[in-house]
């Protein structure tokens, strides 16, 4: 995801964003989470200083070290100013000052930085916060996104994001959320919340077809970066973490092959599998292997196995639909969502039971409501009726689907199908 430096003055992609998260993590540990605003100010100052000096003097050899050093000096400055060493003897003042500097310096050691980042992730994904607030706060604080960028990535407006951020910050202040890595019986529960947020982040980037490609990829990359960070720490080094990470790798490997150059959608069966990123598939497989320790089978394990089935299969025709059906049955035991039901129905259709697939779709809870508001259920139903040769119902549901998607690519795809049905009818 990062490109090698082209020239000494070329910065690594998203350097500031990533450094922002790191610096906030260290600084909130020094100032306290309730002083998040103070930490943000110090980070902003460090960046402004870099903006002033780097263009004139070139990028330093170790830009992230430079930024950290600047933040550290400023932190020492602030703490020093708020202490009243000078009221006492100069000897004591000197000693206290030196000790303060050493204490603050400790927080900037590499392994401490990793710890701090994780503490910040746990704080932002606090279980008492609403899911949407967790996502916004994580993106702002840990990932260094601005409110406008978050809004663009989540396809909403900036005011909505500002409100979520405000709400989350108020909670952190009032309920005195502590920065710490949970332990004991608390840990698995807290990890689950973090997984959910990372999974949401990734899905927003992967599935939202309304925002632009670049910011969507940023979101996926960020979810993967944080998941990797989690997997590299002793508390996060868990089978479920690896399962989630492998799931992300498998999905991400297909990111570039899902759209044509004109942004029209390419269905799985038509995707050029040679374009799939083999390096990411390899990583996915590696993490999936790491996830197979222990006896807990999380939803991420099953979803990753499903994604692996597709990624490791050389062609669409050779897909092992029976095995996929088994995996979806397993998934349904843990996750009874309409999406899982729908995907299972699609597998049924591939096995040669489109009628059964249609029946199962009609059995989904609140399917009437879903058909009113969601394009995908209409599109799949239309497809299945089409396959059965029921042109009337096929056209009906495809027509339903049309106004429900904001994506031109999806609209074009449906229009093509409707045209094909009309053509078949007139012949």
């Amino acid at each position, binding site marked *: 995801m990062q490109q090698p430096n082209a*020239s000494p*003055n*070329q*910065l690594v992609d*998203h*350097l*500031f*964003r990533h*450094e*922002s998260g790191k610096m906030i993590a260290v600084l909130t540990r020094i100032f306290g989470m309730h002083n998040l605003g103070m930490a943000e100010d110090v980070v*902003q100052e460090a*960046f*402004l200083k*870099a*903006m*002033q*000096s*780097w*263009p*004139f003097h070139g*990028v330093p050899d170790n830009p992230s070290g430079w930024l950290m050093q600047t933040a550290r000096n400023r932190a020492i400055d602030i703490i020093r100013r708020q202490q009243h060493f000078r009221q006492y003897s100069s000897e004591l003042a000197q000693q206290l000052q030196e000790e303060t500097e050493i204490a603050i310096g400790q927080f900037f050691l590499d392994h401490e930085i990793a710890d701090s980042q994780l503490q910040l992730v746990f704080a932002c994904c606090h279980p008492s916060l609403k899911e949407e607030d967790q996502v916004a706060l994580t993106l702002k604080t840990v990932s*260094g*996104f*601005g409110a*406008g*960028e978050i809004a663009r990535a989540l396809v909403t407006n900036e005011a909505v994001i500002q409100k979520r951020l405000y709400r989350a910050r108020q909670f952190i202040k009032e309920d005195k959320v502590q920065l710490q890595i949970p332990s004991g019986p608390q840990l698995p529960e807290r990890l689950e919340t973090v997984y959910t947020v990372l999974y949401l982040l990734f899905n927003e980037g992967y599935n939202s077809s309304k925002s632009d490609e670049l910011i969507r990829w940023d979101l996926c990359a960020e979810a993967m970066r944080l998941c990797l960070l989690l997997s590299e720490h002793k508390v996060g080094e868990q089978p479920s973490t690896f399962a989630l990470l492998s799931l992300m790798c498998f999905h991400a490997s297909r990111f570039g092959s899902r759209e044509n150059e004109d942004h029209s959608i390419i269905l799985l069966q038509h995707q050029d599998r040679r374009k799939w990123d083999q390096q990411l598939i390899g990583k996915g497989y590696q993490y999936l292997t790491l996830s197979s320790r222990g006896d807990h089978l999380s939803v991420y394990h099953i979803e990753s196995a499903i994604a692996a089935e597709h990624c490791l299969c050389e062609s669409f025709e050779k897909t092992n639909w029976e095995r996929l059906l088994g995996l979806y049955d397993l998934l349904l035991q843990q996750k009874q969502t309409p999406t899982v039901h729908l995907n299972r129905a699609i597998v049924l259709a591939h096995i040669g039971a489109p009628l059964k697939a249609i029946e199962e779709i009609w059995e989904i809870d609140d399917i009437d409501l879903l058909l009113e508001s969601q394009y995908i259920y209409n599109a799949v139903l239309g497809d299945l009726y089409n396959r059965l040769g029921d042109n009337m119902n096929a056209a009906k549901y495809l027509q339903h689907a049309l106004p429900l998607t904001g994506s031109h690519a999806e609209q074009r795809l449906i229009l093509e199908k409707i045209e094909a049905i009309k053509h078949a009818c007139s012949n």
Partner: protein
Amino acid sequence: MKSFMFIFHNGQSPTPPTPEQMQANMQQWMGWMDDLKAKNIYVSGEALHAGGKLVKGAKKPLVTDGPFAESKEIVGGYFVIKAASIDEAAEIAKGYPDFGINGAVEVREVMVF
């Protein structure tokens, strides 16, 4: 070739820039600087701190905080570059990355005696 000074009057974005925006802006500055150096027309330049002192007074010079607290347009730095004419220098100044945040470049010819 004559020498010209670019005096940068800092702009100010209405909202604090995000890390990604700052990085993009910095990258533009670097690109501009690299370009001027590649063309061999960059002579020197420095960034200036925002704060400063103003020393003024006919009878007894007085030192006050400055430079110009009332003015939004703070000089943030300068370049000295080489160009054939003031028009060419002004053309070069169009590469300045901060127009989008209401920054401005004052272009002045260095006097030669």
